[in-house]
């Protein structure tokens, strides 16, 4: 019996450096993310216009010193990052992270 499991999930998540997040996916693939770049690409409704998909956040407004405080799972499909600048509304879906440049 088949299940709808084109589901890529997280197998391991850890801090790999001062500003590097490492994720091992359930298919064995490994990715590393620069947390400052993640903050600059925040997908939340105040950073990206919901209708035009235009970026409202100016990446240059985010200082290089921003860091996560805490990273937690959102349901089974995404993660949420609480940043040191107080911003925590972005929901980073696994799908988005897998395609992250």
């Amino acid at each position, binding site marked *: *019996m*088949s*299940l*709808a*499991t*084109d*589901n890529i*999930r*997280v*197998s*391991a*998540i*850890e*801090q790999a450096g*001062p500003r590097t997040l490492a994720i091992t996916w*359930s298919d064995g693939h490994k990715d590393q993310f620069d*947390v400052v770049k993640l903050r600059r690409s925040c997908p939340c409704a105040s950073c990206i216009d919901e209708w035009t998909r235009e970026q409202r956040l100016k990446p240059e407004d985010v200082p290089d010193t921003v*860091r*996560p*405080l*805490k*990273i*937690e*799972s*959102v*349901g*089974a*499909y*995404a993660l949420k990052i609480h940043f040191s600048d107080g911003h925590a509304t972005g*929901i980073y*879906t*696994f799908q988005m992270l897998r395609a992250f440049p």
Partner: protein
Amino acid sequence: MGLFSSVKDKLGGGGTRSGITEAQVKEALAKVQDPDLHQDIVALGFVRNIVIKGDKVSVEVNLTTPACPVKEQLKAQCEAVLKEIPGLAQADVTMTATTRAAQRDNNAAVVPALAGVKNIIAVASGKGGVGKSTSAVNLAYALARTGSKVGLLDADVYGPSIPRMVRITQLAEEGGPNVIIPPLADGIKVISVGMFTQASDATILRGPMAGSVIKQFLTQVQWGELDYLVIDYPPGTGDIQLTISQTAPVTGAVIVTTPQEVSLIDVRKAMSMFKTLKVPVLGVIETMSYFVCDGCDKKHQIFRSGGGERLARESGVSLLGAIPIDPRVAVGGDEGRPHVAAFPDAPASQAYIAAAGAAAQQLSILNAQASGILNQFALEWKN
């Protein structure tokens, strides 16, 4: 395996009078395969407590869910292979179960209230009036019937129908600050907005408030140890559905539909929502499938036929059950006597019991496949 039995194995058996050894018993039972996990029951670690007394052997087979639909079949197979052991006169096989829990990161129970909940099942549809709440209630009762510990969360904030369906009239109790004690209906822990308001009062809440009520149900209700928490979703693909999926690690979803095409259009949307949220769909339950009248035994397919099957086929999930129309189902709902409890032998009840078993089976497979996946995690950043 204990030290004693492993030593016994090395010595070539316990030296009982009949000469039957534990190794022989295991060798025989290794011929029995679990049809879903595709491995033999010895390798899966299901076989426990082998006791050999003369020419009598008793064993316990511990399955992954008490709702296993092939339990009797497995038991018969075990008995048959044991009887082939030379010199064996009597084989007693006891079937037990320990529900397997979805994987979690141990150091980070993000939602502590759900820490003891092994599986969360979403019962959803895209459309209202398809018998979703009726299905959720009867699935919960069908799971509880097999000895599982079950909870039932009514997430329909605006039209809470569960309290009436399970005959709960009292309001929910407070067990301390931010602790809600769920009332019991036939041993099932139940929570619903209906327990906080009088039945005739409408719940008037804006979206964010409705979401926060559901969040409280997931994070502040004393669920304790549960094998299955069944969540009755409101119809549609909106705020509440998203809130649940973001708050709780939902293990799998059951989609309810009627046979008609119009209903299917909305259900496809619900399916695609779960796909986005990465909640695996366990299968489809088709309600109002057919009506068997008392005059002839013909199945009258009032609302066309095969909708659930088509939906299941095109999305690659299984049809968990086709529930016939039985006026007693609706009466039972109104009177607070779920059909599965009131008429367990009726065709609609049997269909629900089989569907619950099939859903539990899918969860076991899923949990076996999901080893190595973090369901909930929290990572503190170090500077």
